[in-house]
């Protein structure tokens, strides 16, 4: 083959992640005199090896691909798949492939990556013994899994744990065997390893440490038997070796290119090998005695080499100092292994002389955090995080930019304990040069300049700046930079309610309160525009109710209400309604049960016990609602507000009255609380529960307000949530007497009503509250804002003006008029049709 006239040819051996990055960067140099040719031993172009494991959770090979044939063809990049380069002739400047192709090059790039290391163990080869590196390996493991019931990974490092996850996803009973005394010995210290091991055990993956496999023989119960040097053994059907990687440097070795003592192709700061026309990049390259087994350093090498290559091919003389250099890379990592967050930064083991470390194990939350700081306590040298890694982004920045730590560095471990007014993130303090996205080498300055150019949306910012498109580890940090830059530009983060009001809910609340506004039209007139919508109308209706407590079905308010509030019942998919009478604390007399039963029978309603300790009656036509409620009110029932953004239920347990463990009368307390707060309108629904002892039968710790009895009184928990995004409630105060308990709940509730956004449960509210729990305690317990009197007065007004909405409605003929399907006929909706299932009605 001959080179096309005048064109210089660059050959890239290996089309892996790094080889592909090199080609992309070289194309970006827009040098039309260069022709690119690449060879890959694999049958496909480059794919995302980092995300390889997602192949098992449903991603297809195309989802993973980084390069496409179409794009390569468009860009004029030539490629040969399934063909391995077997020799390099440096003097002729040619390469030869397995299939017999011989081509010459002007510049050659060796990007052959690495191969999994498989120790030579007798019996260590077999149909169901694998490695974990390529798509083909994954296919093979998948086939093995089909004829196996258990699998074992040899190697408890990063990749080993990923492989274990894969086996688990393939429904194999999984074990991990590690030679060292702990998991991930490179990245984690002993404590971190210990916690990780416990967490992995909890998800039913067996972990065996200090095991050295001596040989593999045929098993009896399973396909293979692994025999360890300590005499013990383990039987398994499938084995995956993940005992480390070795640079693939054979080609360089056989063509006399310098190789490191323990392998790896030696490169300089421009990624040139001992032959200046040959570069080496990625996992096969050895820089300064180090191999980098991560993709980000490989990408940096690719860029360095591509720019060097383009410049030296096009210019006679190149000013060396105008070229970028590879100067080493940080090996900090953050990963989710088997669903567990793990991160390691810098000197995780505290090996540096004089370094000091602080650590914190939360055995309840099962998290471990450690920081290693310099002797004078001013710099962060390293860190370990297991079980939760929110701090990774900000700690990495402290480390990389050698930023000054707070006076007491241990504060890093307890961000909540720090001053609530100071921002904990500190992205403002990062220099513009700080590298934020290490996968794509993007600095804070570059991100900020995109924002400055008008890109103010997180999704668009990701696309334009490229930050966050690799491993995703920097996404949170990029979000913080977006917020802080917008803030700097004087652009408020938009929390305007809707098109009709340029205010947040909390701002509208204050306006309505201070200006004493009593209805929607008045507010719209003075502070809004046009006619309103289904977002602002119910929100304002709720604020008016929280402040003045007028009847929600009174004339100016009725058309603002969500359909559920407008008919004091929950609309169902066929347009009928459900009826939920209040059953405070879930306590109900037999007589009341009988009334509910009779009504359900008479109106033929579907009856179900709810998850909130009460009874729901479904399938009522709109005209039946007043009839049903007349009967219920007469029997002493009140509305349950199942339809409202208001207090729902206060769940209880039987407590001291019956239970042999109870320490307080939880039932009476629950009934008291439910009667106290019923009917109060809030930004979202509010749920509570009271348990009689620490056994917690009422599940109080997943409620907005949870109360748990102690020997001395009550513990109050706040901001828990079940539902879509469960959140454990936080302990607000302990051993309270009845009076203080109620005072605190009164105050928190009004404070929440006043400051939360639309449809924000207390859980989300708490997370957006600057300073979090600590701040809330300051406000409620220490009266930091001097508003407690006001909060209590507001609560008193709401309690004093409570009326059962259904009772008020059935006694008002004007209001009852709306409860018919047709304004001009007594007929019912002919489209509502029921069938019968398990002796009750169901929508057809």
């Amino acid at each position, binding site marked *: 083959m001959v080179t096309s006239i005048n064109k210089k040819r660059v050959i890239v051996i290996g089309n892996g992640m790094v080889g592909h990055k090199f080609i992309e960067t070289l194309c970006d140099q827009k040098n039309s005199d260069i022709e690119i040719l690449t060879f890959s031993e694999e049958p496909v172009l480059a794919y995302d090896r980092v995300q390889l494991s997602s192949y098992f959770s449903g991603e297809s090979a195309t989802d993973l691909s980084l390069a496409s044939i179409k794009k390569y063809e468009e860009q004029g990049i030539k490629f040969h798949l399934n063909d391995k380069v077997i020799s390099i002739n440096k003097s002729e400047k040619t390469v030869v492939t397995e299939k017999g192709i011989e081509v010459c090059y002007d510049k050659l790039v060796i990007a052959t990556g690495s191969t999994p290391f498989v120790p030579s163990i007798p019996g260590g080869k077999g149909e169901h013994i694998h490695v974990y590196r390529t798509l083909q390996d994954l296919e093979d493991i998948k086939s093995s899994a089909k004829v196996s019931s258990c699998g074992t990974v040899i190697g408890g490092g990063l990749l080993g744990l990923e492989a274990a996850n894969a086996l688990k996803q393939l429904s194999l009973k999984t074990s991990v065997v590690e030679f060292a005394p702990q998991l991930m010995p490179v990245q984690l210290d002993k404590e971190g390893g210990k916690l990780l091991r416990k967490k992995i055990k909890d998800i039913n993956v067996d972990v065996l440490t200090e095991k050295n496999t001596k040989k593999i023989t045929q098993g009896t119960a399973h396909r293979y038997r692994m025999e360890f040097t300590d005499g013990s053994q383990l039987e398994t059907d499938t084995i995956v070796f993940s005992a480390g990687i070795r640079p693939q440097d054979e080609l360089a070795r056989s063509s006399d290119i310098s190789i490191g003592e323990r392998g790896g192709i030696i490169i300089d700061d421009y990624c040139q090998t001992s032959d200046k026309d040959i570069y080496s990049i990625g996992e096969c390259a050895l820089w300064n005695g180090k191999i980098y087994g991560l993709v980000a350093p490989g990408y940096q090498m690719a860029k360095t080499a591509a720019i060097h290559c383009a410049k030296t091919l096009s210019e006679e003389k190149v000013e060396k100092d105008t070229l970028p250099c590879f100067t080493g890379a940080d090996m900090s990592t953050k990963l989710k292994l088997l669903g567990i967050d793990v991160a390691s930064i810098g000197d995780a083991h505290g090996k540096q002389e004089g370094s000091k470390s602080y650590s914190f194990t939360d055995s309840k939350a099962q998290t471990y955090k450690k920081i290693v700081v310099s002797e004078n306590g001013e710099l962060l040298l390293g860190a370990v995080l297991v079980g939760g890694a929110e701090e990774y982004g900000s700690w990495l920045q402290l480390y990389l930019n050698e930023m000054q730590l707070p006076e007491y560095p241990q504060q890093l471990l307890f961000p909540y304990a720090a001053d609530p007014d100071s921002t904990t993130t500190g992205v403002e303090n990062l220099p513009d040069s700080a590298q934020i996205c290490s996968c794509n080498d993007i600095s804070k300055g570059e991100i900020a300049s995109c924002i400055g150019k008008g890109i103010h949306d997180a999704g668009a910012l990701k696309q334009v700046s490229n930050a966050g498109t690799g491993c995703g580890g920097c996404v949170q940090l990029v979000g913080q930079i977006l917020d802080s830059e917008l803030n700097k530009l004087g652009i408020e983060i938009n929390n305007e309610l809707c*098109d*009709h009001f340029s205010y947040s809910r909390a701002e509208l609340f204050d306006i309505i309160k201070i200006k004493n506004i009593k209805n929607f039209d008045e507010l719209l007139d003075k502070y809004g525009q*046009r*006619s*309103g*919508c*289904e977002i*602002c*109308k*119910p929100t304002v209706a709720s604020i008016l109710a929280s402040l003045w407590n007028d009847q929600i079905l009174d*004339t100016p308010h*009725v*058309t*603002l209400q*969500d*359909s*559920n509030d*407008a*008919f004091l019942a929950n*609309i169902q*998919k*066929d*347009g009928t309604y459900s009826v939920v009478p209040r059953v405070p604390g879930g306590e109900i007399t037999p007589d009341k049960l009988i009334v509910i039963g009779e009504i359900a029978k008479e109106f033929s309603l579907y009856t179900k016990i709810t998850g909130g300790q009460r009874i729901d009656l479904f399938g009522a036509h709109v005209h039946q609602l007043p009839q049903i409620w007349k009967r219920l009110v007469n029997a002493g029932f009140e509305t349950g507000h199942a339809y409202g953004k208001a207090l729902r239920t206060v769940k209880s347990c039987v407590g001291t009255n019956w239970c042999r463990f109870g320490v307080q009368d939880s039932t009476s307390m629950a009934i008291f609380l439910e009667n106290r707060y019923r009917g109060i309108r809030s930004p979202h629904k509010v749920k509570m529960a009271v348990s009689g002892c620490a056994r917690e039968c009422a599940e109080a710790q997943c409620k907005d307000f949870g109360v748990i009895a102690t020997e001395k009184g009550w513990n109050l928990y706040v901001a828990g949530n079940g539902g879509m995004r469960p959140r454990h409630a936080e302990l607000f105060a302990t051993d309270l007497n009845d009076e203080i308990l109620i005072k605190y709940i009164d105050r928190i509730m009004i404070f929440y009503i006043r400051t939360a956004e639309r449809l924000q449960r207390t859980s989300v509210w708490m997370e957006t509250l600057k300073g979090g729990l600590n701040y809330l305690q300051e406000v409620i317990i220490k009266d930091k804002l001097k508003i407690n009197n006001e909060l209590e007065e507001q609560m008193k007004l709401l309690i004093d003006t409570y009326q059962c909405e259904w009772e008020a409605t059935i006694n008002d003929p004007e209001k009852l*008029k*709306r409860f018919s*399907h*047709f*304004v*001009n*006929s007594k*007929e019912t*909706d002919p*489209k*509502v049709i029921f069938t019968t299932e398990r002796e009750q009605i169901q929508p057809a």
Partner: protein
Amino acid sequence: MKNEWVDICDINDIPPMGAVCALHDGKQVAIFNLSNQGEVKSICNYDPVSKASVLSRGIIGDIEGRHVVSSPLHKQHFSLDTGECLQHEGIKVNVYPVRVVNSRVQLQQLDS
């Protein structure tokens, strides 16, 4: 028969910025009282997206100045002027001629 107007109810039976449903020639028709803006509007009561007869029970509002009702079931917006569903192109409900004469709301006789 066409062009005849049928008496339905009094305008005071519909709260301002509220709605009712009428049985009209065997059809369910939602009537919206925008009288504080000098108008009544009328579209079909059946929500073809949620498949239930509920549009008269939605909240009335505007989307960039267009009068709409938001379905109480899944909040899709239907234009009170054209019957179009703003979220799903191609979905449209019937619009009915409606007027107020001497405070009586009237719908026009439908084609037979």
